[in-house]
């Protein structure tokens, strides 16, 4: 057992966990942040994607100890109070989700994509960049649409800040 200290969604947290604990389980079981999901056991589906120090990572493939000292952002931490993150709003407005299970990871990956590419996104790039996130419901059509839409919204939001 070890004490793991890190920042999650802007708050300092500390948890006493077995060393084999994965970050996703730290989030779900110990911090009750159940928006981050587990959809596979081979690091492929991306339902567990969170940001560590601003970069998208698969929290099912990171030990809690590896994240110690880092700043982790989950799906619960991206809206400002009632105001949705532009990516969340774009997913809703473009029907980018159905069952909702892959959605948190999809949104966290998508934000990372836009952060890396800024406005230089096209459909092919989005499809390629979503390689690490599997959705079984949407056929990706509306997810791709959502990400492209959000890229524009995020640019506007950044310009306003």
């Amino acid at each position, binding site marked *: 057992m070890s004490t793991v200290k890190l920042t999650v969604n802007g708050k300092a947290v500390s948890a006493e966990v077995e060393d084999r604990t994965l970050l996703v389980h730290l989030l779900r079981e110990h911090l009750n942040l159940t928006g981050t999901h*587990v959809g596979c056991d081979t690091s492929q589906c991306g339902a567990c994607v969170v940001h560590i120090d601003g970069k998208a990572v698969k929290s099912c493939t990171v030990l809690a100890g590896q994240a110690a000292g880092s700043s982790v952002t989950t*799906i619960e931490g991206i809206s400002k109070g009632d105001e949705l993150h532009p990516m969340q709003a774009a997913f809703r407005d473009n029907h980018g989700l159905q*069952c909702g*299970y892959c959605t948190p990871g999809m949104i966290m990956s998508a934000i990372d994509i836009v952060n890396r590419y800024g406005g230089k996104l096209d459909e092919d790039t989005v499809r390629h960049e979503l390689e690490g996130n599997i959705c*079984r419901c949407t*056929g*990706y059509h509306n997810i791709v649409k959502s990400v492209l839409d959000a890229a524009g919204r995020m640019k506007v939001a950044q310009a306003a800040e």
Partner: protein
Amino acid sequence: MGVEGIGASVVRKEDRRFITGKGRYVDDIKLQGMTYAQFVRSPHAHAKVKSIDTAAAMKMPGVVGVLTGKEIVDDKVGNLICGWAITSKDGSPMKMGAWPAMAPETVRFVGQAVAVVIAETKNQARDAAEAVVVNYEELPAAADIRAAIKPGAPQLHPEAPGNVIYDWTIGEEAATDAAFKSAANVVSLDITNNRLVPNAMEPRAAIAEYNEAEEHFTLYTTSQNPHVARLVLSAFYNIAPEHKLRVVAPDVGGGFGSKIFIYPEEMVALWASKKVRRPVKWTGDRSEAFLTDAHGRDHLTKAEMAFDKDNKVTALRVKTYANLGAYMSLFSSSVPTYLYATLLSGQYNIPNIFAEVISVYTNTVPVDAYRGAGRPEASFVVERLMETAARQLKVDPGELRRKNFITQFPHQTPVIMAYDVGDFGASLDAAMKAIDYAGFPARKAKAKSEGKLRGIGLSCYIEACGIAPSKAVGSLGAGVGLWESAEVRVNPVGTIEILTGSHSHGQGHETTFAQLVADRLGIPISQVQIVHGDTDKVQFGMGTYGSRSAAVGMSAIFKAMEKVEAKAKKIAAHQLEASEGDIVIENGEFKVTGTDKSIALPMVALAAYTAHNLPDGMEPGLKEGAFYDPTNFTFPAGAYICELEVDSGTGKTSFVNFVAADDFGRLINPMIVEGQVHGGLAQGIGQALLEGAVYDSSGQLVTASFMDYTMPRADDLPSFKLNHTTTLCPGNPLGVKGCGEAGAIGASAAVINAITDAIGNNKLEMPATPDRVWHAIHG
């Protein structure tokens, strides 16, 4: 009517909780004192369980209990059942082998549970499960259809000699044979319909809680139909009587059929929760999903189509072997029979059809309904034959189809189904226009000049949805009726709760069902709450599958709404001192037509509940229920056209264009309908190009993770161009047909027809992997 009524693309009410991470799936739920279950599963496809030693596991840290198959049998927990009786052509009933929730004596597929460990934490349960010592005596396995039907094949169940579950036929054999004898041309194909793993992104999970004082169980489970789960768990598995069992299916992360069935894990969790007197949670991981979720498809078919000299189809003859796995899952028997062979007429006027279906046991996980369930297999047979015929007869594949389209409705096919309405030519026209079909030869020639192989493929599918008229399915062997129920509760303040037996696991019912209410009453959807997925709240329901929620589930709401409105009108008329017949409902108000007199819905509701001033003899309250039983299936149909290019160096397929023209009748929410089509197309394309569950000859699942089983990813798929043509369904009050399965039913044939067109070789099996396509090109 209105911006939130029927026909409006309203954004979904349920989305906010999902996009903010506040969805509540089974694994998100924690109960006080909860323990965790880990199953001990067979590594062998076929073996005798000689002994199980649990002593070491019991001593492991945190272990609360270790339970085995012998104990579940000793406690008289019932065997799993198949709820649809099929009769063989010789009149004998289907041969159902016993399926205990945990195997006491014999395991018949890799992953079958033999014991369960309950512990304080998930890791402790898993650690201890490894300490359970199971002594197996391996038996020879039959891992696929061919191996199972070979003379001398290993026998799975004593009840089923030769591993045959039933040998069933439909249609007129003699007339069909005669039509083939007099045919001008005959086209024939051997078809493998590849085995698929549904892979809803949320793995199955269950939490069971036993309340000793009340002798009452609660089960939280990933189910598409919690009431059916409760019924089966009570009536057949003897876990608890219905009134002592509450089943809750909260947010469910996709189903696609795989979450219809009641699985051993839920049974064991319930039973174990009473044994250990603690809540028990089981959450499957993806590896368990691959090994234990019911798979889909898995047919071997020989199909022949006869044509007269005018290229009119005169007969269709089909012989199919269907793999049902090691045990008969809940609806498995119906999938390759009544959900498959009854659709073999496709969109065509075929006077003679005869089909024989032989379902067999193999040492693989059970096979049952997966999106489309039988209908994709039927559509693939018919549409591959049509395309092959067009090439063999040297006619345009579109023209050949048109020549044979059914144009008069209603149309009775030779295989039970009576199509009520449709316009197949209109869908094909729309699809051809969308893809510029006429311009294809020029595009192909241009691609060729650039060294590329371009192809185009059509698929004109039909499906039977809105499952299903109870009397009809009862006469065909179904153990349940397939109606739906609804209750409309108008609260005293005028807000509305709709209780429905349908279950939403991605379909957006919380929005579309509210749109129906908004449409009828002219109130915002924010005033309407859809309640589903809890047997304590909703009286009964048959759940969501078979594209039934709009056609059947919403029709039940429609019927209940009619009753509520009738009573509300009486109250309004009484309050307004007007005649009931003069009351109209507009924008949430009850108005006396031709006057400015009106009363708002909340005042009518309040009047109903205060009951101070109601018409004489009227009961207080404003709440009505309805059961709706459809009179026929619905028949969504459409045309899909796929244009693609094949890289001859690698065999890789790239989409140029994929267009769909679907006729779903009335669309409640076009945005959601299109989302359903996108998802269905992805699964149909996935079957055609990417997905295939493969067992090796010893019965080990080779494709047991996303590392080996190819799930469609964003870069495997194109954006889709969707079109709609409309003939309203006459069979239900809304004119809707259902849209959930169409894409999965129609897409795969379009893709394979396009690839085989591109490479000029018709011999190509699904999934058309780059390796297979490359071999088809280069030999």
